[in-house]
């Protein structure tokens, strides 16, 4: 991780007033930032712009059709007041947090780490094959994965077929346990990312310390928790943040598998926002939900940065 403090100063500072030098530094800084411009332009127009517009839009009563489509009016925080008074909204917040914790924080991270560790200990050919399968699940286009998992959990699907074969009758998973189904589905889908991160991190851990501890009599568990884990702490924190925030935006998977149902039982915030904005035509109201989703993401991100201090340099 090299960065340059003085090497960038290729222009020899001319003799002169400190202000002259300062002005030159500022100019230099600006010139150096020029390559950033195309990216900043795209980001400002297509990401920052919509966020700002979203915040404004959530303060109107705009609809997709009807008189409020032609002439929406400013309603201040009415949409938010309605949201906070709505039990469906709070259920959705809870569902979203459950989804995040279960599938990303716990599911993908634990399984990814487990796989990374197992692959070090297992037969290389087998490890590579299993790794390939896990990665295929991740590279697959999202909607294909969604269909495959829908078919797996459907009441006449493969899961119940297998349970039948051992004499159990499975329930209609997508109706009776929709959150469980989508959580497992998201773990299936996203574990590869964590697995790759941890695999790389583990390969950077020098084995000497581990071996020394082993010779000293430390058990495998002790070695793992006391030595290995702390050494990959940085990767863990970065990965936690990335997987959490990625999972916050998951839409297609849940939409195809359960549509947010039955009722609103698996309607996480993105699903709720889509339904309100596009299906029920309540654009202003749906945007308010979206803004809150962004806020939740921002809070998670700030918590991670403060607490876990991921490496950015």
């Amino acid at each position: 991780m090299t960065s340059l403090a003085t090497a960038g100063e290729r222009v020899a500072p001319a003799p002169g007033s400190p202000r002259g030098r300062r002005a030159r530094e500022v100019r230099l800084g600006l010139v150096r930032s020029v390559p950033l411009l195309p990216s900043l332009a795209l980001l400002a127009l297509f990401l920052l712009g919509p966020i700002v517009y979203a915040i404004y839009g959530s303060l109107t009563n705009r609809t997709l059709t009807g008189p409020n489509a032609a002439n929406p009016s400013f309603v201040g925080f009415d949409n938010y007041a309605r949201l906070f008074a709505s039990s469906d909204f709070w259920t959705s917040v809870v569902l979203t947090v459950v989804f995040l914790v279960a599938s990303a924080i716990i599911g993908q991270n634990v399984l990814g780490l487990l796989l990374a560790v197992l692959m070090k200990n297992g037969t290389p050919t087998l490890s590579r094959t299993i790794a390939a399968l896990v990665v295929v699940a991740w590279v697959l286009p999202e909607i294909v994965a969604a269909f495959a998992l829908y078919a797996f959990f459907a009441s006449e699907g493969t899961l119940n077929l297998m349970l039948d074969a051992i004499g159990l009758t499975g329930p209609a998973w997508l109706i009776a346990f929709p959150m469980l189904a989508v959580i497992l589905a998201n773990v299936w889908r996203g574990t590869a990312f964590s697995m790759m991160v941890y695999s790389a991190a583990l390969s950077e851990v020098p084995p000497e310390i581990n071996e020394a501890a082993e010779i000293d009599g430390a058990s495998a568990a002790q070695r793992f928790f006391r030595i290995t884990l702390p050494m990959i702490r940085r990767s863990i924190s970065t990965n936690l943040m990335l997987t959490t925030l990625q999972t916050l935006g998951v839409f297609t998977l849940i939409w195809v598998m359960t549509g947010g149902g039955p009722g609103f039982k698996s309607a996480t915030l993105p699903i709720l926002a889509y339904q309100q904005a596009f299906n029920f035509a309540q654009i202003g109201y749906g945007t308010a939900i979206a803004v809150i989703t962004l806020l939740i993401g921002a809070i998670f991100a700030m918590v991670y940065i403060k607490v876990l201090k991921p490496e950015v340099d």
Partner: protein
Amino acid sequence: MRKTLTTLAAGAALALVLTACGGGNDSGSSGADGESTGSDAGSGSATIKVAYQKTDAFTQLDDLLQKCVGEFEAANDGVTVQLEPIAAQETEYFTKLALMHGSAATAPDVIYEDTFQVRSDAAAGYLAPMDDYLADWDGWDQFSDAAKQAGAGDDGSTYGVSMGTDTRGIYFNKQIFEQAGLPADWQPESWDDILDAARTIKEKVPDVIPFNLYSSKSQGEAASMQGFEMLLYGTGDELYDYDTQKWNVGAPGFVEALTFIQTAQQDGLLPGLEDALDTNLPNRISGELFPQGKVAIIVDGSWVPGGWMSDGSNSWPEWQEVAGMAKMPTSTGQEPGAVSMSGGWLFSIGSQSKNPELAFDLIAGCLSQENSLKYDTENSQIAVRDDVASDPVYLDYNPSFEFFSSLVPVTHFRPATPDYSQISSQIQVAAESVLTGQASPEAAAKAYDDAVTALVGADKTQNAG
């Protein structure tokens, strides 16, 4: 290095050129160009874009358009018609349409519009008034007064030409009824009669779904119209009071209707949740489940036999012998004894169309006497043109026409207001929450009341309790 950069640059250029071509041809405009299509009617070239619904179960409109568009293009040199079929079920279809109206470049010229959306879309400024064109069209005289009203906006202008209308009733499978010992000329007089028959079937013919009533928001307007409103309007209560121009909240009939759904669900008379919440259920009921004898009693629309009579995927030649038809009763048999709901679809003109006159010509051609007859017979619509309704070809075409036309005297229409479509979504939410057991009828009704109040404001609601 130079090669990589050159390749990258060439690739980028290629990509941009391709996308510009791809984008340019289809939807035109990108800033500088301004609007791409259009010139005056009759001179130069023009493109008319038609947005409509097409699914594997609903191809009759596509058939009609293939025919009348061919006729239109032949008669109008230089004019191309671009058909834009939207393959989606109801709710998604309306969403897509609304999104298309967002900009001039994507807005369609001719639209397949549902009557319950027309006031709402007119108020949103999406539709163009057609009064001037209608005044010059002699076909318009053939349309019944009710049909002319169907396309009216709040301001009194007409925003759509009716393609046909429909009513709703009960279909039942006579073979299953025989197995259960129920009469072949069954006519329930009250809701309890329906529940009793369903319970008998559940007992005598156990592996059949006794009864279906659409109750999920994933079925969209079907759940409102063929489902809930068939119940509500049979209790004597209505959604909207035309005299006071206010929406009813706290209506006891609303709770009664929800209680019916709850009872049917608790007694196991309805399809299992995985089917009941399926967005494709209407297709599957009319196309497979009912013809294959897997569901005994359904509440559905008068257009359903259209698919059975066609050569398409829903073809069912034996329907006349197997399918019995009955009127939907009022809740306790009170006057007028039966209830039905009527809707229908229209052809509308998009307000951002560059060639509204050409668009109207296309509509007039597609709803000429000959083409209306074709569509109304093939799609099992109730004709709204007098010359079609009295045509012996029409009358002889479909044996169910007589029955469904007989329901017209007891039929109701949905509230013709711009906010109906949004309120309808709340009806579906209420029905589904009772269906899934997530709410009691009272709680669901209260949630509906609150939602309506939030949507239209407390001054537009009145307590009907």
